[in-house]
């Protein structure tokens, strides 16, 4: 009896340590990659000159020009655009799935969304190239390979992540909160905006951040529809080259300082996602905060 108890205790202790270990392994693995990028990229950035690297408009390794401003702008524009589409369509769709849709609609839509998550980037890229790009070309003129095409394709690609996680978060809002609100004569929409959304905020934020991460890091799909010209886009219909494209295009043959510059491009990407991540958190926290005032010390549940 006593022995069994002791064994149980040891087992439980072991499992708890296993959780800790897993967390360490996960964080370590991710850290190592972060460090790997920094170590491979930072020296190059300093060699080139941080200012020249970040704000140079000309990228021409054969001539010794390593400026990535055009690509920073393209990546930012593409990511923000995709986020607008992804959030604008994804979050309402999640609401639809979690709150409004009849059961049969959920039964169709949800597996379809999950399916969408499993389609390879290459396929999205070819779909964009064969369907979307000619459509843009025919509608607005020009080649069609453009910032707009990237934004739409990325917007679609991040939908599953956003819909899936947001739905999960919205479903998790305790019924009693919703009942309380409806019982006070709030409409479903008000209940959603003022109670469910703030309660589900952390999950929805996570979904957006993961989605945006996917968007900014995406390469294979973007490469096919971007046009890939390193220029500052004058309009949304211009061809652009994103940071990820730059890496994918040249990593296979780059060496020396050129290779370091590509890793430095990775560092910049990393920095951008951190900044976006940070801003997003801040904005979302503030927004909910001002509307409902300071919700002293309330974590969503």
């Amino acid at each position, binding site marked *: 009896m006593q022995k069994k108890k002791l064994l149980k205790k040891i087992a439980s202790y072991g499992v708890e340590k296993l959780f800790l270990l897993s967390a360490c392994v996960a964080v370590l693995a991710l850290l190592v990659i972060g460090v790997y990028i920094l170590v491979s990229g930072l020296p190059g950035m300093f060699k080139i000159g941080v200012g020249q690297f970040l704000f140079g408009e000309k990228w021409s390794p*054969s001539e010794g020009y390593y400026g990535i401003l055009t690509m920073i702008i393209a990546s930012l524009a593409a990511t923000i655009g995709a986020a607008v589409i992804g959030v604008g369509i994804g979050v309402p769709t999640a609401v639809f799935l979690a709150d409004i849709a009849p059961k049969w609609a959920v039964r169709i839509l949800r597996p379809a969304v999950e399916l969408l998550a499993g389609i390879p980037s290459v396929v999205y890229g070819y779909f964009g190239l064969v369907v979307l790009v000619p459509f843009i070309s025919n509608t607005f003129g020009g080649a*069609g390979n453009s910032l707009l095409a990237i934004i739409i394709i990325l917007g679609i690609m991040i939908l599953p992540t956003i819909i899936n996680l947001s739905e999960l978060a919205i479903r998790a809002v305790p019924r009693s909160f919703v009942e309380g609100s409806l019982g006070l004569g709030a409409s479903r929409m008000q209940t959603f905006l003022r109670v469910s959304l703030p309660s589900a905020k952390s999950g929805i934020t996570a979904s957006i951040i993961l989605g945006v991460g996917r968007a900014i890091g995406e390469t294979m799909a973007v490469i096919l529809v971007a046009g890939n010209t390193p220029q500052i886009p004058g309009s949304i219909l211009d061809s652009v080259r994103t940071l990820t494209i730059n890496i994918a295009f040249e990593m296979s043959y780059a060496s020396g300082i050129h290779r370091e510059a590509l890793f430095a491009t990775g560092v910049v990407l990393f920095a951008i996602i951190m900044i976006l991540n940070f801003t997003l958190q801040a904005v979302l926290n503030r927004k909910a905060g001002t509307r409902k005032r300071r919700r002293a010390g309330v974590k969503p549940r």
Partner: protein
Amino acid sequence: EQTPIFDDPVEVAEQGAGGQETLPPIGDDGELKGTIEIIGSTSVQPLAEELAREFMKANPDIVVNVQGGGSSVGVTSAINGICDIGTASRSLKETEKGAGLTEHIAALDGIAVVVHPNNSVSDLSAEQVKQIYMGEITNWSEVGGADKPIIVFNREAASGTRGAFIELAKLEEKRDDGSKRLLITSEALEANSNGALKTNVSTKEGAIGYVSMGTIDDTIKAVSIGGVQATAGNVIDGTYTLYRPFLMLTSGQPNAITRAFLEFVKSEAGQEIASQDYISAN
């Protein structure tokens, strides 16, 4: 300096032939066993796979692994000895040449200038191609076609096809200090593979691009250059000069099974396979 520079293709072919001589003959005894690792150019990969498949049929005890990665990866892997054979769809750069690699030409690949099938233009002079890529001719009407802006497609910088095309279309200019300047218009769009380029051209009536000859089908139209059609025959008889070699590279003294494989590549049977989509190196 980073852009792969192609030597005159004829010269390359000769170099390759020279490399071939250094290969010691091997006996025909069936004692061959083991694994051959091939890494490198994605353009060479389909051919290498096809060759490997046939080779393995004849030699069941040998396993041939074909990996992609790109021409440069192929070259470095061959130099470092990570693989038995490195492949490249371009000739070696000056810097790579000193590393003691032996070049074996597996096939030749022609490069065709292509336009949309609906385009009424079917012949361009070499000069016109150059001017289009330099951005000096921007409308098809200037070369006898419809009044439509030209959308210029280029390949990405790492592409062996691009290197060969630039070299052959003289789209590069030597500066006084010896460095080279690209003349291609900054408006040009870039596609990262034969397939992508082909799809782009096939979906846009005003587009022009260049692809590996083997990939041409009825979704795009190859134009003749100065009256010469882009065909294997014209490459072989020397009238069509837009082509590059598919190289297999070995370092030092390759082992017996690797030698057997290279032997097979160069054999009748091997070159028969190569000439299905490409042009036989012989």
